[in-house]
């Protein structure tokens, strides 16, 4: 494919980026050959995003050199990156919801291309690569997969020699991902190079020619991923073996502790998903995992189950046999439920408040007589709170810089351990968690998953909403899939595989006749 003597398309030498004293990237070396798909592997916080932002001119390197086609270059802005031939598909889309597809594309093109021509060009290109798009549609109305297509078409319009994709499959169904891989192969056959950023070992092994592994801002390995095993790659990424979650498969199930019956919730905002007729039951001792691609109603389902936005129908949700659909989050907590939302900053926790204050945030009524005194006056017992926060931190191994620091000063993983620990500490009989380990390092993720499984083992009902299929298979007793606001019937975890989940994610509800049918075969 590529001749060994060829000049690398891109060569990075000792690239370093400091934020204050923290080195997000520390002396990184990397070569990308023409016509190769090169993987950049690493955990969250390993420095992958910082590195590509420097390549795309969004961040300025502190030191080091970027060599493009044999010539040293500086890339002061994304416009310059595009000019020399680098295109980028962002992880968190850099799209404008209020604008149309054509306007979004026009924004990343040179100023001398007339706006009227953009739509035609985009349509032509999207057809050529099998990425259908309607140029006049507003982005706000599009699915996540369609949005990614815009990003890709936008990058391709520049006719780039190198395309950077940042975690592109995290928002796709397995089938959509397959289509993406076809597109990448096509690009490769045209002699273009791809820098493919991911933490998913399987797909890296499937499509990438070479891989560079980052950990804590440094290169810890460069290899041919096809010669490695997932375990050896994981070791390079994480630096140590990660404990796998232990489960007791012989768990006996108890009463139904949480159920949803024909839960239907209209979209609250123009950008939200409508929940349609969702029903399920979770018994004591089991973990129901709800898989799905981002933006299919996971947040809305969490809001409806937590009671942050109560429903009119009191029977739509019941907790420990009590109709709770009309109850707010406080009353649902008093019934014994606990909740862990997806967003840590500004939802599960207030970054500027201390850990003990963030403990009070979730438990100001459920543990009122412990944390408050003075009756209606509601005097806060700061001492008791600090002790409890300390206890939780110790149990969950939360690493922090001070006795009771602001939540915002903790790393994502440590804060998430605290937020989960905050709920576990009161032994909830029902726990509902949305994306429990999103953006969390492997060590913390494994600890959190174990804690969820243990809670179920001790007789609670646990619902885990997640986009991460590995996580789903690790913790679930039963698996259901949410797609466009509809929930499939739950299937026993043992009967599920990635392909089946993928079909359900694509909304193939009509093909399954429910869990019984799946059991039968």
């Amino acid at each position: 494919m590529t001749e060994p003597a060829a000049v690398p398309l891109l060569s990075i030498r000792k690239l370093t980026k400091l934020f204050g004293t923290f080195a997000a990237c520390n002396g990184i070396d990397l070569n990308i050959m023409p016509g190769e798909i090169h993987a950049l592997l690493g955990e969250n916080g390993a420095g992958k995003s910082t590195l590509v932002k420097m390549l795309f001119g969004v961040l300025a390197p502190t030191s080091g050199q970027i060599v493009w086609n044999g010539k040293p270059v500086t890339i002061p802005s994304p416009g310059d990156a595009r000019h020399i031939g680098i295109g980028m598909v962002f992880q968190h889309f850099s799209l404008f919801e209020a604008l149309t597809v054509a306007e979004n594309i026009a924004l990343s093109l040179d100023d001398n291309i007339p706006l009227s021509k953009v739509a035609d060009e985009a349509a032509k290109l999207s057809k050529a690569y099998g990425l259908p798009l309607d140029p006049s549609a507003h982005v706000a109305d599009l699915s996540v997969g369609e949005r990614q297509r815009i990003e890709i078409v936008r990058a391709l319009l520049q006719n780039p020699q190198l395309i950077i994709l940042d975690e592109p499959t995290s928002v796709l169904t397995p089938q959509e991902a397959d289509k993406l891989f076809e597109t990448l192969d096509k690009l490769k056959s045209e002699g273009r190079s791809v820098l493919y950023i991911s933490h998913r070992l399987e797909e890296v092994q499937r499509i990438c020619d070479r891989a560079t592994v980052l950990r804590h801002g440094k290169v810890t390995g460069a290899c041919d991923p096809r010669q490695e095993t997932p375990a050896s790659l994981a070791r390079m990424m994480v630096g140590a073996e990660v404990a796998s979650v232990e489960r007791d498969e012989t768990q006996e199930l108890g009463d139904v502790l949480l159920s949803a019956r024909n839960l239907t919730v209209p979209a609250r905002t123009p950008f939200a998903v409508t929940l349609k007729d969702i029903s399920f039951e979770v018994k004591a001792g089991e973990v129901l995992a709800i898989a799905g691609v981002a933006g299919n109603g996971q947040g809305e389902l969490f809001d409806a189950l937590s009671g942050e936005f109560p429903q009119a129908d009191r029977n739509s949700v019941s907790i420990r046999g009590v109709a709770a659909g009309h109850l707010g989050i406080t009353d649902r907590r008093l019934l014994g439920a606990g909740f862990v939302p997806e967003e840590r900053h500004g939802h599960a926790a207030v970054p500027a408040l201390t850990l003990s204050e963030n403990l009070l945030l979730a438990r100001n009524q459920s543990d009122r007589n412990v944390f408050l005194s003075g009756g209606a006056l509601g005097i806060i017992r700061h001492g008791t709170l600090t002790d409890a926060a300390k206890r939780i931190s110790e149990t969950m191994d939360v690493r922090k810089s001070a006795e009771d620091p602001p939540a915002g000063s903790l790393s994502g993983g440590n804060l998430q351990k605290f937020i989960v620990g905050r709920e576990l500490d009161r032994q909830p009989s029902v726990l509902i968690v949305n994306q429990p380990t999103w953006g969390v390092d492997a060590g913390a993720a494994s600890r959190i998953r174990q804690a969820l499984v243990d809670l179920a083992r001790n007789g609670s009902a646990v619902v885990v909403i997640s986009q991460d299929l590995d996580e789903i298979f690790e913790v679930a007793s039963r698996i259901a899939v949410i797609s466009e606001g509809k929930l499939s019937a739950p299937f026993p975890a043992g009967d599920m595989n990635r392909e089946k989940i993928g079909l359900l994610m694509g909304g193939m509800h009509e093909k399954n006749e429910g869990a019984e049918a799946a059991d039968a075969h």
Partner: protein
Amino acid sequence: MIIEAILLTIITAATPLVISALGELVTERAGVLNLGVEGMMVMGAVSAFAATAITGSPYVGVVAGIVVGALFSLLFGFLTLTLVANQVATGLALTILGLGVSGMLGESFVGQPGIKLPQINIPLLADIPFLGPLLFKQDLIFYLSIALVIGVNWFLFKSRAGLKLRAVGDSHASAHALGIGVIRLRYLAVMFGGACAGLAGAQLSLIYTPQWTENMTAGRGWIALALVVFASWRPWRVLAGGYLFGAVTIGQLHAQALGVGIPSQFLSALPYAATVVVLVLISHNRRMTLINTPASLGKAFVPDR
């Protein structure tokens, strides 16, 4: 002809509202909420009057109003864009400062007769019966106001720079990632808003009531802010809304003159009450508001470096 006279006064009352609201519309489309319209407007009014009094030329006054308005808005821009201060509080500060500084600068001009901006007749068109005197025997600022509505509409929806401006207002993070100069564009948008507010102020002290009195803007800057919401950030609707408010203002003045038996204070309160009512009617539809409001309005932006 009484109808024509009334319509003329309505246009005169509406023009400063339309101009200042258009300026604020552009500012807000870029994602910046500048509550200091009142302050910039009053600064424009005093500088236009002073420059006219000193040079004898009201056209110099118009330019002075625009320039001072834009410069004054830079203060706001520096605080909110460079130092990322709270936009609401800084806007209030701008209003308080503007009212104070204008009062001090204008002290020696109080009671002085002003020079009115002359009328410019457009040949031929001015002779059209009824419409001619209304639309084509007007002053420079009126013509500018119409040109601004058309120009801003074209700029926002047809030009590439306008597209960038809307993009910045929709998501500054995405815009930054694409290499659009967020802060620079916002500075320009803020200054445009300031220039418009200054021009609107010049209209007040050179046309509406050609003299200087302290606080002569009398809340018009705030009404302009309400107009932007009313217009759901669309230039043509600003024009319509501005004339509606102009009509309310003039209507109550005529009612006072006729002595309809309602205390004059109640009639004077009418434009303010109408603003509240209109705001309620508009914002009642949460969905509409959500769709139209620039998504990053009022949010501070600090780029990573």
